[in-house]
């Protein structure tokens, strides 16, 4: 089993579940927190579009995250753990 390698969210493949390690500072941070995307939370990657726009699921909510923001959110793969 891979050991907690930290990768940016936009590198995550479809269907993987990840643990959020870091959320970037800045304007979008509050919005991310409201949506439940913060350190210590799990996300499921529903789709990775060409170019890196990500479609993730936080429980029953589908959220689209632009490539640059997704690149700044750090996660570790947690598919096997869950």
């Amino acid at each position, binding site marked *: 089993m891979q050991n907690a390698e930290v990768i940016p969210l936009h590198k995550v493949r479809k269907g993987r579940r990840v643990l959020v390690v870091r959320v970037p500072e800045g304007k979008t941070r509050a919005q991310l927190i*409201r*949506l439940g995307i913060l350190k210590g939370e799990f996300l499921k990657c529903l789709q990775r579009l060409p170019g890196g726009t990500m479609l993730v699921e936080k429980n029953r909510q589908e959220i689209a995250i632009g490539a*640059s923001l997704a690149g700044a959110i750090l996660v570790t793969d947690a598919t096997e753990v869950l």
Partner: protein
Amino acid sequence: MSERPLTGQYHSSPHNHIEKHRHIGVGIGEEDVDRIKVVLVGNPNVGKSIFFNHMSGLYVDVSNYPGTTVEVSRGRFNTFDVFDTPGVYGISSFTDEESVTRDCVLEADVVLNIVDSVHLERDLFLTQQLIDMGKKTAVLLNFSDELEKQGIDVDAKLLASYLGVPVFNTTAVTKKGFEHIEQAIAEARKGEQDLTIHRRLHTMLSRTGSEAEALLILEGDEVIAQRHGIAPGEDREVMYIERRNRVNIIINAVLSERNRRKRIGSTFGRWAVNPWTGVPILAVVLYFVYLFVGVLIAQDLVGFTEETLGHGIWEPWIQGVVSNFLAPQSWLWTILVGEFGALSMTVTYLLFLLLPLVVAFYLALALMEDSGYLPRLATMVDRSLNAIGLNGRAVIPLILGFGCVTMATITTRLLESEREKRIATSILQFAIPCSAQIAVVAALLTGAGFQAMVIYTATIFTVFVVIGTILHRALPGETPALLIDLPPMRIPRIDNIVRKTAFRAYHFMKEATPWFFVGALVVGIMQVTGLLTVWQNILAPFTTGWLQLPREAATAFVMGLVRRDFGAAGLYELPLTPDQIVVALVTITLFVPCIASLMVMMKERGSKEAMLIWFGTWVGAFFVGGLLSQLLI
């Protein structure tokens, strides 16, 4: 110039400066100030307006919040005043919607929080925030039927005891549970504040007098802090995380999941986002939009309204009326009811051409929005738009631009940053032909052949990309990343669609109409004073020498000032080769949005920037048109 209100600063209008008694929306408070104010609050797409429509019945007063395009509806339910607010994820001042909802909540006596039970995890954040604000609250859980289908159980009783406020199950579409609404208002009460937040509140409370405002200041809301002359708090993040954690605990307690089944809607939704399937879906959607807007409305309906009602009935009638007072062909007569007259041409244009088109476009947009397709389209095109400094949200003004550039320019307000607004406005003014123009362009190109069509489309598309890229490179700053939730795909509700379309169309016409009159007046005066001829003479050498078109084409270009399609229509009568047609159409598409769009652009972007863009379109149009001419002819 009139400075555009920035996010969260709309209240700086003079009447709001003198604080203490703020009013919700427009026209409120003119009577019955004592009525209990019930404010509906919820996340976007939770079916809030269905509740509102049910409660308020027919008598609804929809108005724009001062200084914003945000809609606040007010109605009457029993002895209460009911307000419908824009959907938000939380109360603060990040966007216009949030600012408006924030002020409505601050003024509310009772908050009815509509919650999507399928998305408790998302929605309860707002619920808890409302409770932390110390507002009398009741929760209406919507989509209870959906829970059943998705195999989720929500223990409403337990949720009520956690939150400390009454919770009712409802299904808005079938009006199930609506009998509890009155009870909900009656039983609404202050809930269980988060403990740590509660303690923090105490110190601030003495300084503001209202728990709600104290909380917002603690959470770093600059606008509210400024109103009280207090420095905004720096604990937003800690408090948000605190709240998030509390919500997570509540969710774990009240929610249980049986095995979930996939819905057809979610599969289609996935297809709409993935480019491989999404592009064909987009093509089909656009084709239907074209059939509806482009054929049914633009050709069949407008053909009737413009020709029969406008040119056939209205114009001769008004000319007759005015001729009673003024000598026909006198200068005032010409300005009023002449070829470009404010009462003749402009009225026909506004009522019989623009209005049907605008309604049709807004209708199509509302359908795409309420079905859940639009946010998915925004997601799919997000990356491509990044290349020109925009994000997925910009699809909305870009799509609308094909309807009416003036309308689309107003819509750029929904973009987050000034930079995006600047880029989107420029692209709209340069490279997007509006529907009035597309009709004429299509007709001329069909005559000129397939090759002409390809060259035209390729050139316009290239200009679109080049302008976007140049601005993206040249303007300082970054493109804000897309961050949107995708509501489930649903069959849109007709009454919502109709209401939304009517509101937007009305709002647009109200805002744009004066500018169309001003535009007509300017051109009318130019015509009477002979300035129009001067302008044509200035352009003539460029037209014949550089663009290699007949001298008369200059007239067509100038006519483009009045209405973009006039410009193109003027080319019908000229004997042009297919190559010349391409050159002329490219030039005319690129330059000069009509005067109304120039006026609106000046209002939105300031006169300096607007003149820069306007001048840029002249240079750009003649440069690209000439380049093409040198290559082709």
